[in-house]
């Protein structure tokens, strides 16, 4: 059963078409990776799904409901949550308060404090919970933002390059964490460049190129697709 249906979506910025007539289905309970070279339109598609950009054309369904005209906050209340490409946290506020703001609509009192502690421990941020978020390293800010996204307990978690700036160990740990949430029923849509990470987590893959769907299928089929290898190696225009 599909959780997200992107139907014929196009996004133009003036004369530039960033996303062109894209159809994408994300099934409930899967980890779906969106890959493609720089400028393929992956992050734009993410922002269209979450409502940060209005589409020029097309519709977006979430749980069979048309959300194309809804604000991002309304989509989040329906069960979406996103981690942006660049760390997007409240830099002047303490780490714990960042998590608290994400949690406060779902938990209160002692239960909220328990959840704050649980997330801070899970993200290895407990020792730094009193620091302002802007004082954390890039990787730690990535973790914090993932924690804020998880605090919403979403049906659909959108992660835009979640491992950028992380060490190989941290990257691997992030992958295992994502798989554990998926095992509990969370649907995950990931934009990622790191193919080792994609191999670690992906159940289904969609390849975007020049704003259009280039290929889709399971990971093995995509990896063995020569045309996909070519666009990643920049040979498309060489032929």
């Amino acid at each position: 059963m599909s959780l997200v249906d992107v139907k014929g979506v196009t996004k133009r910025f003036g004369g530039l078409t960033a996303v062109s007539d894209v159809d994408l289905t994300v099934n409930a309970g899967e980890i779906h990776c969106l890959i493609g070279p720089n400028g393929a339109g992956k992050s734009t598609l993410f922002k269209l799904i979450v409502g940060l950009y209005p589409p020029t054309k097309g519709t977006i369904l979430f749980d069979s409901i048309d959300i194309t005209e809804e604000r991002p906050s309304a989509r989040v209340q329906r069960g979406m949550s996103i981690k942006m490409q660049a760390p997007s946290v409240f830099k002047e506020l303490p780490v714990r308060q960042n998590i608290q703001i994400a949690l406060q609509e779902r938990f209160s009192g002692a239960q909220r404090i328990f959840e704050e502690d649980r997330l801070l421990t899970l993200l290895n941020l407990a020792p730094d919970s009193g620091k302002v978020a802007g004082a954390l390293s890039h990787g730690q800010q990535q973790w914090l933002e993932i924690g804020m996204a998880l605090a919403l307990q979403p049906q659909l978690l959108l992660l835009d390059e979640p491992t950028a700036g992380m060490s190989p160990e941290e990257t691997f740990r992030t992958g295992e964490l994502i798989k554990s949430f998926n095992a509990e029923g969370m649907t995950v849509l990931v934009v990622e460049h790191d193919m080792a990470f994609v191999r670690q987590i992906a159940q289904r893959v969609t390849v975007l190129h020049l704003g259009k769907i280039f290929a889709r299928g399971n990971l093995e089929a995509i990896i063995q697709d020569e045309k996909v290898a070519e666009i990643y190696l920049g040979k498309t225009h060489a032929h």
Partner: protein
Amino acid sequence: MFKLLDGSQTLGRGWTFWSCFVAVLAAALIYPVFADSYDVGNFSYFLIWIFMALGLCLMWGYGGMLSFGQTLFFGISGYAYGVLAINMGGGSATIAALVLSIIIAMIAAGILGYFMIWGGINGIFFGIVTLSATLVLAFFLGQTAGPEWHIGPARLNGYNGMKGMDPLAIGDYFIEGSALYYVMVALIVIVYLALRMLVNSRIGNVIVATRENPQRAEMLGYDVRKYQLLTFVIGSGLAGLSGALYTSWGQFITPSSIGLPAAAMPIVWVAFSGRSDLTATLVGSFLLLFGFQTITVYSQQAALVLMGALLLATVMLAPQGFVLGIGKLVADRWSARRRLGASPALADTSRLQPDET
């Protein structure tokens, strides 16, 4: 409730702070016993403006919205009080006029705020639009000198200003002198504590989050426009409270209390004090008003130049505000001293050794 008063969004926590608060309040309460009626009246006048400063602190310091429109809502409410008090008659009707004039200012803020916030106006443009609206009202009221400009028996009177309204009263008892002073002190305490509770509440968390990163706040499921509008209406409503109290205090109001020099004043008070904290704004604004009034007796121009110099010095030397900076310094020294006092061994090791110099 005490948790909200003592939360992390406001400086000053624990028994030391609240003991100081009670001591200052007690001093304020016994002040009229020792001071003459002129000084008590002057103090009431200073306190009138504090609401406007606290409102701007909420909008600018906590909400990230630099509104140049505090005197716009001050003026709307001040004139509304005059019109209502004159039309409704004196006595207890003045209390209704006060409440209604604040509501009118809040409705006006709601309308202006709706178009600005839903229209995506933010940052410096927020200041420009609110300043423009302020100047429009000041110029409009300035050209209402003719007899045709009246609402019932209340004449607007152009730059000469509106007069003839009664001060606040309950029945035949006029709230003036010491009584007005005590009303002001009570209102300041109520507004200050209520704002502390607001900024330390869940709503306050979202207001601060919206200042820091509106997109992230939206992506956590908060419709940031509603929180911004709420902040704008409350902050402007407090300017309205100042305006209505000002008109009832002096029984007049003129367009000059709305225009550009007046509109800049709250910015100077709040910037100098420290926009990100209510207590710093309360203390700093009072000190500035006191100083401004003292210098104005000798030269109004000198007082205005001093205000400009203070704003410049704040921007150059203490962008977070002088009073807030001093407050933080004192708090840090105090807690460091307590830590060292609690651990003498640490006190010894923390001292520089001769070979470290």
